């Protein structure tokens, strides 16, 4: 197996990946990839709209577009993907974040872990050489970039992970299972280097990215207090003033820098990573987080719709964090979710009653994947478990599957079983319906 590539050049992947790449390179006629109708350029379907000369042909356009650093085509439908910065999250999202789509992070209560995921996304962009656009109303984007985690190299990652594991085993000796020994072999959702994807990187949260790397990155900044000098009363397009300015800024960057294919002479195509922090919070001038029946209920949803239009027509990927726990009106939350492509919710245990629950003692919070887009296909690649938890160790952020602890009590008593059922209810109900009440099947 090859070593971890840094994401430049073409990311090769073993197994099902290789035949697809070869087939995309050869001419479209006659290959077995075509379904009814034999489409030509199976990869990078969003990029088909980009007016790259020769992209209509099967092979040439595909090969050229696929050589963008830090991207790879999806195994399922050839969609161009970028990494979200966390390989475990990439795996849950079906391989990565599709180019031209929007990732919505519903913030946890104190915005600790969601800002971490936001920084992972930006750090990944810097490491892959993508252009960044960082927008915030709260902190100066320059300060956000100073706090990015440092990328880890191959051999360092193993050391860091072992450190974490040995630290844990000092507290309780790791007992290898004797009876249910098959469960020990289940993957814990952590994708280590050399096992799966080659296009994600690993980061050390305890260290900051070095200044040289940050200086070498190309990025655009939108800091709301600097952009809005006076509060104009006229709201164009019935959108919030701040949102309008942000949309115009994004559109200007996309068209001037040629991310929408309007500059075909540009030799090297690149991805624009857009990060918008705490959208919808009162600092943006929006009141959906403050009032039960807000006055500007449609401002954020209109913004998301226009942003979607901009993303679909350009080579960009966007991450947005929204403090949805502050939104009182649930209708707005569901509308925001419908307008986003991928929705991930974070729920931290700090200050909640779940902190004392023995089921969660190793973790810092739960992560819910609410929605994954179905792009260019009728199905999407959903992971088979909905019970996922995350924890932030000293250096890494891990996402793991949640299991019920085994019932180790000597006397099988009714009360202890009821506790187990109670904790089983904490597991995600999946489609929203609770299965079963207090009774449980007694074997």
């Amino acid at each position, binding site marked *: 197996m090859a070593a971890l590539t840094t994401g430049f050049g073409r990311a090769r992947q073993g197994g099902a990946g290789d035949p697809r790449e070869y087939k995309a390179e050869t001419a479209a006629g006659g290959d077995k990839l075509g379904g*009814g109708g034999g489409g030509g350029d199976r990869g990078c379907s969003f990029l088909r709209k980009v007016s790259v000369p020769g992209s209509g042909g099967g092979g040439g356009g595909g090969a050229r577009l696929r050589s963008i650093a830090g991207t790879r085509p999806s195994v399922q439908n050839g969609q161009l993907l970028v990494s979200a910065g966390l390989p475990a999250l990439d795996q849950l999202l079906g391989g990565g974040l599709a180019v031209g789509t929007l990732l919505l992070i519903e913030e946890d209560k104190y915005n600790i872990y969601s800002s971490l995921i936001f920084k992972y996304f930006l750090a990944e962009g810097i490491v892959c050489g993508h252009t960044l656009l960082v927008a915030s109303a709260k902190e100066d984007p320059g300060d956000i970039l100073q706090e990015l985690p440092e990328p880890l190299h191959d051999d360092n990652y193993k050391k860091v992970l072992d450190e974490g594991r040995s630290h844990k085993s000092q507290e309780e000796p790791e007992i290898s299972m004797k009876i249910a020994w098959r469960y020990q072999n289940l993957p814990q959702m952590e994708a280590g280097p050399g096992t799966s994807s080659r296009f994600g990187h690993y980061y050390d949260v305890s260290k900051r990215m070095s200044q040289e790397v940050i200086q070498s990155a190309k990025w655009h900044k939108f800091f709301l207090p600097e952009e809005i000098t006076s509060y104009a009363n006229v709201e164009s397009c*019935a959108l919030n003033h701040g949102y309008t300015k942000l949309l115009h800024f994004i559109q200007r960057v996309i068209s001037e820098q040629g991310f929408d294919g309007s500059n075909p002479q540009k030799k090297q195509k690149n991805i624009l990573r857009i990060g918008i922090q705490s959208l919808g919070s009162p600092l943006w001038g929006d009141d959906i987080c403050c009032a039960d029946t807000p006055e500007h209920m449609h401002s954020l*949803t209109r913004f998301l719709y226009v942003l979607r239009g901009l993303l679909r027509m350009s080579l960009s990927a966007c991450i947005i964090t929204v403090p949805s726990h502050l939104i009182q009106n649930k*209708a707005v939350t569901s509308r925001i979710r419908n307008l986003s492509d991928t929705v991930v919710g974070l729920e931290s245990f700090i200050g909640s009653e779940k902190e004392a629950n023995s089921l969660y003692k190793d973790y810092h919070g739960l992560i819910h994947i609410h929605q994954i887009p179905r792009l260019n296909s009728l*199905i999407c690649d959903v992971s088979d478990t909905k019970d996922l938890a995350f924890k932030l160790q000293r250096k890494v952020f891990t996402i793991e599957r949640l299991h019920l602890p085994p019932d180790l009590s000597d006397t099988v008593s009714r009360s202890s079983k009821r506790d187990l059922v109670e904790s089983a209810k904490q597991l995600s109900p999946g489609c929203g319906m609770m299965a079963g009440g207090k009774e449980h099947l007694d074997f």
Partner: protein
Amino acid sequence: MFPELNNLLNVSPDKPEQGKFTLLCDAKTDGGFLVHHFLSFYLKANCKVCFVALLQSFSHYNIVGQKLGVNLIAARDRGQLVFFEGLKSTVEVLFGSKEQPNTLKFIRESSSDLKSLYEFVQKALTPSGDGSATSWKFPVLLVDDLSVLLSLGVEAVAVLDFIQYCRATVCCQLKGNVVALVHDSDQTEDEENAMLMNALGHQSSLILRAEGLVTGFCKDVHGQLKILRRGLLQPKNDEAEQWNTLLKVIEIPCARARI
């Protein structure tokens, strides 16, 4: 299109029904496959289709359409398909020149009026008098989806007015069909959406409801499909079926499991 769904609905591309309003809804699962089904069905049935796509781009429908056996680019070129791409028009409205008239100008203005969208549909589906066009069977309007209009600030009443005008023109005058998708959000308190859904359900002759499983999430079975027929002669027929779509790039979908 899905042959199993055609069998359930007792229709085929050779003899489709006319003058009907079909409502598609989804709850806790994605009902987009129904839109793809009807798009490919009516294109194969040789009807003139006006597709108002508000949420996805043209290439998305094109690629899925190829898997289902229709070529949207060819259909558009020969005039069978009139495709309105909401996302592209919105970007043009906001960032393009302000003089050109646009069907989505309600985004810029606060007044929520879908009249310009209706005029677009009317112009697209009314047969032009020159007689040069090849004769299509009957016009069909397909909308994906109406809940987005509510998110954009259009009032539910305005959306209902739009559908009423479209039905009057397309179903009654031109003897065509109207198919629209609405997301159902019964767990959240979206009253406007609920009102829209109830009113449209009342007007429709066929309701297809894609729901997630009641018992929870399952990887192999995506959900169930409820078909409700409302007609003068037939009593209300409520069939609940389990369906299972396994779709691959290589093969044409789909395998279904009946329970």
